[in-house]
C-alpha cells in the first residue's frame, strides 16, 4: 500500500516536472521576458542588468531549476500586464473558481449518478428516453452556448437570476466565499449548472453503460438466482461495482471542470482564475499563462493521486496485488 502510494507520488512528480518544462519553455521563449517587462525607452544597459537579475544569463538547465524551485515556493514571477506578483493575483481569484467547480461537481454527481442508474435499470421507461435526450443535448451543446441560453431565459427574459459576477462575497480567513450570502448563492446557480451540465451528462452515460455491463455479469445473475431483492442486487452488488470506473472518471473530470471553468467564467464574467487566464492568453501575459498551467497540472495530479488511493479503499483486489 505504502509502496504503491510512493510509486504514484514519484510518477506525479515526473508529470509535474514535465509540465513545468513546458511552462518554462513558454515563459522563456514566447516573447522575450525582458522586453515584456520594460518600456521601449529602457536602455540596453538597464535591460542587461534586469536580465542578469532575473537569472536569464545562467545556463538553461540552471534557469529551469530556478523556475521550478521558485514556482514550488509559490513564486510565479510578475504579470507583464498588471505588474503584480502572479501568485497574489491567482490567490485573489482562486476561491471563486474552486467554489464554482466544487458546486458544479456536486451538482453533476448528484444528478448524474441517479440518472445513470435509472436509465440502466428501466431501459424502456419514458423518463429514460427523456434523460437520454437531455444527455444528448448536454453533450452536443457547447458549454458557452448553454450559458448564453440560460442567461437569455433566466436573466434577460425572466429576470430571476443575475447574468454576471459573483454577487456579494464574505471574507473568512483570507478565503472569499459567495456561499454565505443570498446574492452570492443566486449568482452561483447559472454558472454552476452551465459548468456541471456537460459533466453530469458524462457521468450519467458512464454510470449507465457500466451498470448495464455489470448487470449482465455472472455474479449479478447468481445474486438474482439466490433470490436477493432487486434493491440489494441493483444498489448493492451492481452499483458498488459500477462505482470503481466512476470514481476514476469523476476524479479526472474534476480537473477538467476547473479547466472548463475558463469558458463558464468568460460567459458569466465570473472573477476566477479561468477568466484571468483567458485575458492573459489574449494579452500574451506569459507568467500568468505559465502559472495557470502549473496550477492546473498540480490540481490534476493531486486529484489523480487521491483517486488512486480511493481506488485501493473501494476495491479489495488491489491490496493483494500490490502487497
Amino acid at each position: 500500500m505504502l509502496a504503491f502510494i510512493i510509486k504514484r507520488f514519484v510518477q506525479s512528480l515526473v508529470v509535474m516536472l514535465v509540465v513545468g518544462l513546458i511552462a518554462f519553455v513558454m515563459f522563456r521563449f514566447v516573447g522575450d521576458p525582458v522586453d515584456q517587462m520594460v518600456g521601449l525607452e529602457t536602455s540596453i544597459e538597464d535591460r542587461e542588468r534586469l536580465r542578469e537579475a532575473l537569472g536569464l544569463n545562467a545556463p538553461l538547465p540552471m534557469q529551469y531549476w530556478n523556475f521550478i524551485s521558485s514556482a514550488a515556493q509559490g513564486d510565479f514571477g510578475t504579470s507583464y500586464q498588471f505588474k503584480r506578483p502572479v501568485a497574489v493575483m491567482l490567490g485573489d481569484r482562486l476561491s471563486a473558481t474552486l467554489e464554482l467547480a466544487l458546486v458544479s461537481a456536486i451538482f453533476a454527481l448528484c444528478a448524474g449518478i441517479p440518472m445513470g442508474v435509472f436509465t440502466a435499470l428501466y431501459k424502456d421507461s419514458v423518463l429514460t428516453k427523456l434523460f437520454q435526450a437531455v444527455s444528448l443535448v448536454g453533450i452536443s451543446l457547447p458549454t458557452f452556448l448553454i450559458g448564453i441560453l440560460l442567461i437569455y431565459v433566466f436573466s434577460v427574459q425572466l429576470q430571476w437570476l443575475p447574468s454576471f459576477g459573483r454577487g456579494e462575497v464574505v471574507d473568512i480567513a483570507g478565503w472569499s466565499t459567495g456561499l454565505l450570502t443570498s446574492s452570492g448563492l443566486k449568482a452561483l446557480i447559472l454558472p454552476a449548472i452551465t459548468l456541471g451540465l456537460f459533466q453530469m451528462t458524462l457521468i450519467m452515460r458512464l454510470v449507465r453503460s457500466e451498470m448495464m455491463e455489470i448487470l449482465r455479469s455472472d455474479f449479478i445473475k447468481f445474486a438474482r438466482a439466490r433470490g436477493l431483492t432487486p434493491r440489494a442486487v441493483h444498489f448493492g452488488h451492481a452499483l458498488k461495482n459500477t462505482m470503481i470506473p466512476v470514481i476514476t472518471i469523476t476524479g479526472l473530470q474534476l480537473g477538467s471542470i476547473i479547466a472548463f471553468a475558463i469558458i463558464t467564467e468568460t460567459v458569466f464574467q465570473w472573477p476566477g482564475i479561468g477568466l484571468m487566464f483567458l485575458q492573459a492568453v489574449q494579452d500574451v501575459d506569459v507568467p500568468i499563462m505559465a502559472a495557470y498551467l502549473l496550477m492546473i497540472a498540480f490540481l490534476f495530479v493531486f486529484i489523480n493521486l487521491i483517486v488512486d488511493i480511493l481506488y485501493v479503499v473501494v476495491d479489495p483486489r488491489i491490496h493483494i496485488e500490490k502487497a
Partner: protein
Amino acid sequence: MPMNKETGKKMSLIVRILDSDIWYSFTRSKVTMIAALITFLIFASALFAPIISPHNPFDLASLSLMDSLLPPAWSAEGDPNYLLGTDDQGRDVLSTILYGSRISLTVGLVSVAFAAVLGITLGLIAGYMGGRVDAIIMRIADVQLSFPAILIALLIAGTVNALAGGMDRERSAFTVLVISIGLSFWVQYARTVRSSTLVERNKEYVQAARLIGLHPFLIMLRHVLPNVMGPVLVIATINLALAVITEATLSFLGVGIPGTQPSLGTMIRTGNDFLFSGEWWITLFPGAMLAILVLAVNLLGDWLRDALNPKLR
C-alpha cells in the same frame, strides 16, 4: 446470359451492404436516418453556400448600416429580404450562418484529418518500434489525455498567436485553429492503432515481408489500417462534433476565427453583446445551427459506435 464480371461484383457489393447488420441497424433507427439526413443537408448547404445564400455577407459593398440589427422577417419590423434578420453590420444572418457553417465544418474536417493522420502515424510508430520510442509517445499521450482538449487547444492557440505576433490574424487564424485542435485530438487514434499494431507486429506476414525486402512499416500500414478502420471512423465522427465545438468555443473566447469572416462561434460571440438589448436572433440562430449540426453528427457517431460494437447493445 454471361453476367458482366464487373457488374456482378458491384451488385454483390450492394447486396452485401443491404444485407449487412450495419445497414439493418441504420434502417431500424429512425433517429439515425434523420440525423444522417440533417448532416447531409448541412454539409450540402455549407458546400453550396455561395450559390444558395441570398446575400454575400463578405461583399462589403453590398452591406448597408441602414439594414443593421433588423429582426427576422416574420416580426413586425422585419424585412422580407432578410429572413433571419441582420447583424450589427447589416449582414444577412441566414447567409452568414451558411458561410459560417462552411468555415466551422472546414476547420472541423481538416483538424480531424490532421489529428487522425498524426495519431495513426504515431500509433503505428509506437506499436512497431516498441521500447523507448513507444514509452515516450504513450507517456505524452497519457499526460495529454488527462488534460481536456479545449485547454490544450487554448494553450497552443495562445502560444502560436503570441509567437506569430504581428502576423495577419485573419490569414493565420485557420491554420492556428487546425493545428491546435488537431494536436489536442490525436491521442485516441494513436492508442487504437498502437494496440492493433502490437497484435500484427509478430505475425508471419510481417516477417515474410521483411524477407522479401519490403519495408515492414509499409506492410503493416496496409494490414493494420483495415483492422482499425471501424474504431478510427467512430473516433473521427465523434471527434468531428468535438472539433466543431472546440472551434466554436475558441472563436467564442476570442482566440479563433476573427469577425470579418465569422464562423458560427464567432457569430455567437458577436451576438452575445446584443443579447441584453433584445437582438436575440444574432446569437440564437447560429447557436441553433451549431447545436443541430453537433447533435446530428453525435447521433451518427453514437449509432456507428453501437453498430460496429455489438457488445455494447
